[in-house]
């Protein structure tokens, strides 16, 4: 007999869909089928079942091969590395639960490390802008039920967050949006045509790197001020029209992605977008929300912020929290040669950082904690495989709208494999012994 588990949370993207159904084998060890998830979410569940998955820590040898070691040895190596480093970097956290993040931060505080999460390469710039000008935001539920003006700026949910549009932003019928997509006007701003822009009522093909100019032009248009004939490749008439369209809605939302957070302008683009949202509230209700990628990158920011006051790139080396991306951010620290050991967890900088930063990881004492074999585990000295969070162990995660959701365990991890929490807990105990901190 198989069992069907309902209301499972998908631990892949920041949409954190909570309506997944999973059929598991009688002994609760195998996932047989996954319903309701999109293709990438589905893949994530099936990935946990891969036969060639490592189930014991692996230590890189001098000749580049790997030797299996025990979890005890892995805990010892990790604790020694962190306790002896002058400025260790502890990076990642976005694909694990808040419980594990919290223990990890305790380790960071004990050893005087820099803690950073994957916002460093996606929405960190958003967090800088939020600190500079604040953020009027809302929940995805409010958007589903109320929003009649939807803007996607520099993002392509059709591919990156596949069920976002059907569950929240375009198609669902809500209390005040009873006609689904017909109740809404969709505006897309992107230098490239995408599967999202195909659905748009109004599409602005902004010139590459001129998002800031266009955002500021919308703000200027809202104030009824003069504009040059063409801004960022868009004729001024269309900018005044767009401003009117936004104003005329009852409830509007700007969603934005890495097309604006990581291109020319970075935090300033978001600063201008938030300021535009603020300006629009003179006329109607408007909100803004980042399309967060990793399913719990939002949670990592939340936990860091309630523990240390800052959402990413937190430098604890001097015993108090310092935060200044550009100085305390992972890629800068690696490229500038500011850290002397690297601990990564629940992320893959090996695949996403510039090559010079990855080379630095390879040259330093390094530990990678990840269920998979990834480019990061391949450049690290020690790879510690762990259980899949949200599949083999539950725990708390934050959706892109800052709503905390408890993920569910659906199957057991392979025999003897530790969870992130269990591994970190053991490293913390050992680190405290080495540092002479009272338990």
């Amino acid at each position, binding site marked *: 007999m198989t069992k069907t588990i309902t209301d499972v949370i998908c631990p892949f993207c920041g949409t954190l869909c909570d309506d997944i159904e999973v059929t598991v084998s009688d002994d609760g060890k195998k996932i047989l089928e996954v319903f309701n998830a999109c293709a990438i979410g589905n893949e994530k569940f099936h990935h946990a079942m891969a036969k060639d998955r490592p189930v014991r820590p692996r230590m890189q040898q001098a000749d580049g091969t790997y030797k299996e070691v025990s979890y005890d040895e892995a805990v010892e190596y990790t604790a020694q590395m962190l306790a002896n*480093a*002058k*400025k260790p970097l502890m990076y990642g956290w976005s694909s694990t639960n808040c419980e594990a993040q919290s223990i990890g931060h305790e380790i960071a505080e004990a*050893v*005087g490390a820099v803690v950073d999460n994957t916002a460093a390469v996606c929405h960190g710039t958003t967090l*800088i802008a939020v*600190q*500079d000008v604040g953020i009027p935001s809302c929940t995805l539920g409010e958007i589903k039920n109320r929003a009649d003006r939807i803007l996607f700026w520099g993002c392509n949910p059709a591919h990156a967050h596949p069920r976002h549009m059907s569950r929240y932003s375009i198609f669902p019928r809500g209390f005040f949006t009873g006609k689904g997509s017909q109740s809404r006007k969709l505006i897309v701003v992107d230098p490239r045509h995408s599967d999202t822009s195909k659905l748009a009522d109004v599409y602005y093909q902004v010139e590459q790197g*001129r998002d*800031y*100019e266009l955002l*500021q*032009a919308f*703000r*200027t248009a809202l*104030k009824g*001020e*003069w*504009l*040059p004939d063409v*801004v960022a490749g868009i004729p001024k008439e269309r900018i005044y029209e767009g401003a009117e369209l936004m104003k005329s809605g009852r409830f509007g939302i700007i969603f934005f992605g890495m097309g604006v957070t990581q291109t*020319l*302008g970075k935090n*300033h683009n978001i*600063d*201008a977008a938030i*300021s535009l949202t603020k300006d629009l509230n003179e006329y109607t209700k408007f909100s803004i929300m980042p399309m967060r990628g990793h399913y719990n990158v939002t949670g990592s920011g939340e936990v860091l912020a309630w523990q240390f006051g800052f959402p990413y790139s937190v430098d604890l*080396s*001097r*015993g108090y929290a310092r*935060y*200044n*991306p*550009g*100085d305390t951010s992972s890629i800068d620290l690696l490229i*500038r*040669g*500011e*850290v*002397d050991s690297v601990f990564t967890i629940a992320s893959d900088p090996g695949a996403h950082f510039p090559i010079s930063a990855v080379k630095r990881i390879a040259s330093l004492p390094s530990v990678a904690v990840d269920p998979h074999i990834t480019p990061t585990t391949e450049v690290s000295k020690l790879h510690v495989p762990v259980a899949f969070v949200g599949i083999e162990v539950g725990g708390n995660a934050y959706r892109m709208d800052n709503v905390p959701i408890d993920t569910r365990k659906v199957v057991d991890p392979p025999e003897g494999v530790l969870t992130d929490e269990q591994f970190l807990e053991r490293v913390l105990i050992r680190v405290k012994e080495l540092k002479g901190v009272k338990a």
Partner: protein
Amino acid sequence: MNTVTLTPKKQSDLYLEVNNITPDMFAGKSTEQIAALPVYVGNTEHPLGEFFTVTGAAGASAAETRIVIKGDSSRLKYIGMKMTAGEIEVEGSADQYVGGWMAGGKIHVQGNVQAFAGVGMRGGELLVDGNAGDYLGAAYRGDWRGMQGGKIYIKGNAGSDLGYFMNGGTIVVDGDVDVFVGTHAEGGTIIIKGNAKSKVGGQMVQGEIYVFGTIDVMLPGYIYRQELEKEVEGMKGKFALFEGDTAERHPKRKGQLQYAKLYLKQ
């Protein structure tokens, strides 16, 4: 004025945080006491004397103390942080935060400086013979007060985000600057003798920017007003005056909206 000379004797494996290298900290101390001041490498603390030979003598007060740092300082962070008086001469290049939050005195760097030089600066003078990095005279993260007073003079080029949230003082750059100049500024004067790229004066409320060279792309929120004769940094010339950023809020004075002014040399 008395001079203390720091000569490097050992390279640190990581960067050194030397926020104690200021005339304020050195004043009234013997060379032994100065050598015992802490410097930081990551989470470890070391006496300054481990990395530098300290010679000369400090003055009785910060104003009477001059510090010379010999050799290469490109791995020293926070030189002259929060200094209020006296002088620092850096014979090489320096790393980040040179003159951060300084309130008085003078720093001269013969080489280049990295990012965040003069962040939150309130007074004094910072002179750099080479280039400056990003966030020159800007606000520290989350602060809404960038440079508030004093003068920064860069003989080379400067990076992006110059004068971010600036609201007083003067920055002069002889060379070119990267994107975002004077963003969110509420006052102060920025003079660029070379060229600027784009995003000049974005969200700027008040203050002045002079560009002697060209701006690749103007922001949409700047309106041309008139041509003016002006004398800037000892140079006379005709300037086109633009006012903006019209996207941003602006205070009123005598019933008139007060805009930021952008002067482009003709």
